[in-house]
């Protein structure tokens, strides 16, 4: 029972909330520009790297380092949007998505070059310590993942719902031309979407970089798990991204825990494919994910 809670549910919610964080980043960019940002993994690992440099290298206090890293990555995201994605406005979403694949390839090399082959650490305060939660010993880092992600997602949600800029962003995602007519600087909204998304990716990178073995450049690939998450939740739903992230995180953790014992014939490391299996099942039932908006077809 304690195992189910500590290694199953809490661990799963922890990793799931980082997926949710990444997935929200995908959704924000998708809503603003209609593009899936395949470059998210590279932004994530650069975020982990920036945190690592600022916290362990420059010796900033950890929370300051994290915020600074998010700011740096927001700038990287905005620059990327301006250079590579802005010229693609009005073109097919697939073509724009492929541009982000190209960006991923370039930024990934940059990440490799910066991080090198050595294992790095983000200098987080949680380490391998445990905490008591209702009498069960759980890893502090799992709790930290849940709390940090949910606070960040909540802040973004509040920003979108309450602020003037958030309103403008929502207007842009509904209809770019009308938003333009209402005096919204649509280009700036694109830029903002990329900035927020990259900052969230950086935060997720920090959380994933807390792993006991540290992180390497190749750890970036973990962020690809956010793709099935956004599909399960629905490409344009923030709520969906959060639910789907948590669902997939827990499903993964439970698979890791029980599959080697009860379904060994499925092979080693089945948890890797769990998100994709869930995604296919959901798509069979609901082609636009759990909370996605059905595309209206007009002839």
């Amino acid at each position, binding site marked *: 029972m304690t195992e189910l809670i500590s*290694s199953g549910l809490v*661990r799963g919610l922890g*990793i799931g909330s980082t997926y949710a964080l990444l997935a929200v980043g995908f959704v924000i960019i998708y809503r603003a520009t209609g593009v899936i940002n395949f470059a998210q993994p590279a932004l994530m690992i650069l975020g982990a790297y920036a945190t690592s440099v600022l916290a*362990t290298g420059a010796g900033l206090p950890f929370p300051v380092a994290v915020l600074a890293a998010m700011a740096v990555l927001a700038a990287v995201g905005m620059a990327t949007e301006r250079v590579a994605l802005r010229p693609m406005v009005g073109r097919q979403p697939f073509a724009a998505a492929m541009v982000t694949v190209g960006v991923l390839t370039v930024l990934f090399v940059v990440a*490799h070059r910066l991080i090198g*082959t*050595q*294992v*790095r*650490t983000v200098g*987080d305060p949680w*380490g*391998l310590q*445990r905490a008591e939660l209702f009498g069960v010993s759980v*890893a502090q880092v799992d709790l930290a993942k849940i709390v940090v992600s949910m606070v960040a997602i909540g802040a973004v949600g509040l920003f979108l719902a309450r602020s003037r800029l958030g309103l403008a962003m929502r207007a842009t995602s509904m209809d770019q031309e009308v938003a333009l007519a209402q005096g919204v600087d649509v280009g700036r909204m694109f830029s903002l979407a990329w900035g927020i998304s990259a900052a969230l990716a950086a935060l997720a990178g920090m959380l994933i970089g*807390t*792993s*006991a*073995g*540290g992180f*390497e*450049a*190749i*750890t970036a*690939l*973990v962020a690809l*798990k956010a793709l099935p998450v956004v599909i399960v939740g629905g490409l344009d739903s923030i709520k969906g991204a959060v639910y789907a992230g948590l669902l997939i995180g827990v499903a993964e*953790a439970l698979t*890791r*825990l029980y599959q*080697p014992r009860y379904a060994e014939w499925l092979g*080693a*490391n089945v*948890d*890797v494919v769990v998100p994709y299996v869930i995604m296919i099942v959901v798509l069979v039932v609901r082609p636009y994910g759990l909370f996605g908006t059905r595309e209206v077809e007009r002839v």
Partner: protein
Amino acid sequence: MRSNPVQRRGRRGGMRRGVAIAGAFALLATACAVDDDDEPDDTSTDVAEGTEDAEGTDDGAAGEDGDDGAAGDVNVDVGVTEEPCPEAVNPDNGCIYLGVLSDLSEGPFAALGIPLTAGQEAFWQRVNDEGGIGGYDVDISTYTRDTLYDPQEHSARYREIEPNILALAQTLGTEPTEAILPDMDADNVIGAPATWWSGWAFEDNDFGLILESGYSYCLESQIGLDWAGENVAPPSTVLAVGYPGDYGGDSAAGVEAWAMANDAEFGGFVETAPDAVVGSQDAAIGQVVGSGADVVVLAVGPAEAASIVGGSLAEGYEGLFLGSVPTWDPALLDSPAGEAMVAAYRHIAPWEGIDGETPAHEAIRESLGDDLPANEGYIFGWVWSYPIKAALEAAVENGDLTRAGVRAAVDGLEVDYEGILPSATFGGEANETAVRTAVINQPDPEGSLGVSPLQVGVTGATADAYEYTAACA
């Protein structure tokens, strides 16, 4: 709809032409097959024909290099030129090209592969500084390729560089090396492995092409467990955790053999994979914690080892971890698992670290100057180069620096390791010649390269008694 018949006809016309062209090719293919049959298994033409750097093809050309007595009557073929190497140390010398197939950028052992290759470059630089081999300098940089620790990539890159090299100065990884062995056999290319698989000791496995140094993973885990039994506490249950294939498998086979010989329970072989593949080591950690083993032998990469040791200890595991050579990296001391590693992890190594007292160690330190390498890979690369150097020297002595000549020189080859390992002889009975000593290290922030030796020259009863007649896995 009216255009349909026309259109269909048009398509059929195109089809017809396509078939005609295909037919032409089929004919051509048959034509070229018809003229051959007399040729195939004549290996001598194989070798000569493979030469592109025609300059070095015959003895006449070699003879022109008159400033060195030995070169005058040495036969050469592929991968040896009379032109000096690019950036040659001795511009009057010819050049021997050796290939390097390593993990240099994104693969799981890149952290090891880069210093390893640097160590080999330093080794051959020293050889060249001392005048080269038989009137030739040795170049390993031109044909250095990154194969990402992947057998398929390894094979592709091998076929790319094979037409231009005499031998392989390094082929990293057990499975990648196995992938190219049939080709190496057909091409008469020998190589130094960057792997300690037990199979390299047996001609059945390596066709006598792989010149290994030091112990094997299989004996490594046995020596490690023998040491743990004598110095910590005799384990009653042992567990192996590793990558699938002959690295993890070989190590696990050693663990199993040790358990059999010592009446201990073998808890099984937990297969895991690099973090990039599986995302995290949580599954392996769960199995380690649940196994109740006293000693766990790890055969994974450094980051994965740290995750498993740190994660298991955090979840309450209290046993000991023994790590195979490639599991250690000094950077792990700074990871969150650093303390756990110091407490519960011991590293098994085939020879002494950077502070050793042998002539080889001195030469290594001299080549480094004041800089320390990132990890012990540098030393590995250095040590693994001795047998290839010995083989090239023996081939020059025999007057036959062709691929076939180099291959022939391997049988009975004596290799002097300048003290870092006992001298070795290739081609004998593996059970007699196998190296069965190790060094046990402890992670230590004070030690150079993050470790300090606990015990040097470790041997163990089980490992010594192990009947070594075939590859363990």
